[in-house]
């Protein structure tokens, strides 16, 4: 037994962080956040050098064949840097969708495009995820109609992959007839949400899974774990910065970190946040290797990390005083990233509700 990252995972993590530190200094982040499209071709293509796009695509389709755990490590790094890239949807959920719901021929066609970074597929759920917002689509043969609001990681999507309530997935090209999108800059300017409408748009239907709903849920679960990892990274940034700030900032003739009031807030942050890292790893590993625990740990990781991260975001902002509330240090990018991650693919309330259902803990009324 060994519960920790392998040498390769740590090296990958280091190089990703190094890359992001280099390519995404604060001024660059600000510039990318302004349009709020959640996509920067330079950054995205640069990540290809690290093999990010094909991270979990099987090797026979040109990917690295790694797992959700590796993706979670990457997500923590991306969250730490508040990177404006469509990672969760395009790099994790979309290939998993093919691996779980598509025929071999469909996989053959699309997975190499994902691995090569040519296809940026945004994944949306019409109903299963418990996300607020309108979502109503129908599939007539291979024609998709209806709307799904609030699709994430779709700022520069080449395709939309929409899961219907019955677990069937429909892939539509972004420039397909009858498809129209409306992009909303979100609270988190590093990630937009897109409302997408289909009007008898031609779709490739993925319906190869034996249990289609279970297959759809696997994609959802992995997405939730990745969002949890991203929140973990974002909260860790805020904590690291608050600790550094508390060591330098002087008030009342003392470095503020020497006041128990500040010190104890930061101690509370680390005491709640650090165990989230093990939790994210465990939940991610469960997606890869422990199917019995996959759903439960994904639901709990999304919910618990979201709750911890909200408190860490509040307390670390408080630690910064006025400097935390203004735009000066850019701390709010992470505050908002945590807020965004919390809500998409189902908030903590919904995730825990699903955890309860899984265990047969239904309410009496």
């Amino acid at each position: 037994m060994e519960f920790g990252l392998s040498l390769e995972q740590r090296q990958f993590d280091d190089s990703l962080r190094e890359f992001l530190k280099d390519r995404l200094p604060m001024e660059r982040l600000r510039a990318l956040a302004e349009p709020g499209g959640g996509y920067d071709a330079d950054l995205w293509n640069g990540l290809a050098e690290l093999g990010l796009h094909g991270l979990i695509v099987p090797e026979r389709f040109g990917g690295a064949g790694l797992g959700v755990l590796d993706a979670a490590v990457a997500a923590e790094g991306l969250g730490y840097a508040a990177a404006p890239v469509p990672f969760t949807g395009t790099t994790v959920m979309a290939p998993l969708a093919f691996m779980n719901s598509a025929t071999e021929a469909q996989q053959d066609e699309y997975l190499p495009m994902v691995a090569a970074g040519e296809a940026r597929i945004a994944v949306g759920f019409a109903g299963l995820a418990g996300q607020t917002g309108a979502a109503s689509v129908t599939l007539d043969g291979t024609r998709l109609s209806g709307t799904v609001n609030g699709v994430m990681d779709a700022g520069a999507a080449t395709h939309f992959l929409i899961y219907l309530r019955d677990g069937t997935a429909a892939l539509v090209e972004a420039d397909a007839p009858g498809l129209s999108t409306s992009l909303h800059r979100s609270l988190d300017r590093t990630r937009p949400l897109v409302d997408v409408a289909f009007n008898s748009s031609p779709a490739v239907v993925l319906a190869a899974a034996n249990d289609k709903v279970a297959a759809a849920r696997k994609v959802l679960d992995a997405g939730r774990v990745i969002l949890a990892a991203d929140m973990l990274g974002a909260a860790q940034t805020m904590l690291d910065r608050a600790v550094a700030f508390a060591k330098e900032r002087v008030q009342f003739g003392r470095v503020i970190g020497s006041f128990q009031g500040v010190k104890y807030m930061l101690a509370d942050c680390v005491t709640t946040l650090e165990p989230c890292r093990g939790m994210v790893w465990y939940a991610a590993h469960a997606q890869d290797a422990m199917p019995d625990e996959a759903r439960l740990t994904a639901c709990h990781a999304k919910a618990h990390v979201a709750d911890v991260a909200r408190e860490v975001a509040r307390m670390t902002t408080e630690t910064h005083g006025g400097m935390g509330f203004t735009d000066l240090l850019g701390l709010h990018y992470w505050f908002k990233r945590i807020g965004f991650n919390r809500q998409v693919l189902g908030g903590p309330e919904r995730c825990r509700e699903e955890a309860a259902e899984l265990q047969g803990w239904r309410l009496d009324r």
Partner: protein
Amino acid sequence: MDLSLSEEYQALQAEIRAFIATQGHKSPKVGGGRKRPDQKTLDWQKTLLEHGYVGRTIPVEYGGAGKTPDVMEAAVIASEFTAANIYAGLTNQGVSMLVPTLLEVGTEEQKRAYVGPTIRGDIIWCQGYSEPGNGSDLANAQTKAELKDGFWVVNGQKIWTSSAHYADMMFLLCRTEPHRPKHEGLSYLLLSMNSPGIDRRPLKTMTGRSEFNEVFFTDVKVPESQIVVGRGKGWYVANVTLKHERSMIGNADKVTTRLEQLIKMLSATEVDGVPLIRQAEFRDRLLRLQGEVIAWKAHNLRLLTEAAQGIDSGVKRMIVKYGGTMLGFRLSSLAVDALGAVGLPFESAGEDAEDDDATTWNIDYMYDVGLMIGGGSNNIQKNIIGERGLDLPREPKVQTAATIGRG
């Protein structure tokens, strides 16, 4: 114990209800906005002034309605506007802090010059307190003013100055007696923000707006008479002002309004066809918050009664800002969670327009964090509650290079 209203207050209540019924449609939107009042707001403020619903107890000669102070009247007015979700008048720093300060300690001339225009919304004030490096430690202000030829000449820098980018005037805490001990060297000046030598640099905040500014002073000249109370009395005057700020920030009407909004939102918002209020965790959080709000409202009634009886509420008053901002944050947290992904699209309509509901809630959610920091941070509040409220010993003074010589 008597929660019924006497005839006099019932009459006032009826009058306000009639007013709201006929005029309420002219009200600007409640919440979210920390902007310079637009024309709609100014018109509404004027209407409220005419009816004595704002500036009620301010003497007629200074532009108010000249009524005898009566906290129950104030409570009736506030509660009617809250219940109807109608804008209850400007609550900026000029109205809520400077005006009561001047009425308490200003000269006749100062009152005549500033009270009326301020409550009408014609003069917008900002507060020149915080400086880089002394956010919470106000008494350590280093911005200097020297008296030369009948003018105070101001040099230095302020930061976290809300509204300075559109304010007309500032009340400024500055050091005029550099050789006296820290708390005795300060004065409190009133100055025009259009004075030569002032450089305002808006600081954008996390809400995306510029609620704060840096303000730089280079040989800014302020007439000698623009001092409040006198030389070296700045700390005293600032504390008069802070007292009013603290009571402004904690307010049971706000949490009551939010709870009502939440009940509506949770009833109206559905996931998979089920309203959130019928989902366990959302309902539980709402119930817990309802309990807290009931406690907070009752506490506020106690404070109101004690104020009417001229009783100093002591620690009961001191807990209001800390407890109120935390409760406010829990309420806005539930709101953004109830909005969920639908609430994430975020476009502030800018300085002069109303935002949509989701953006307003998200701004309130973030602004609540700002409230934990501004007006005496939560930690400062807990020091006050502990030391002044519970009479616990102060943090011992530490002799360091930074404090030596400051006293």
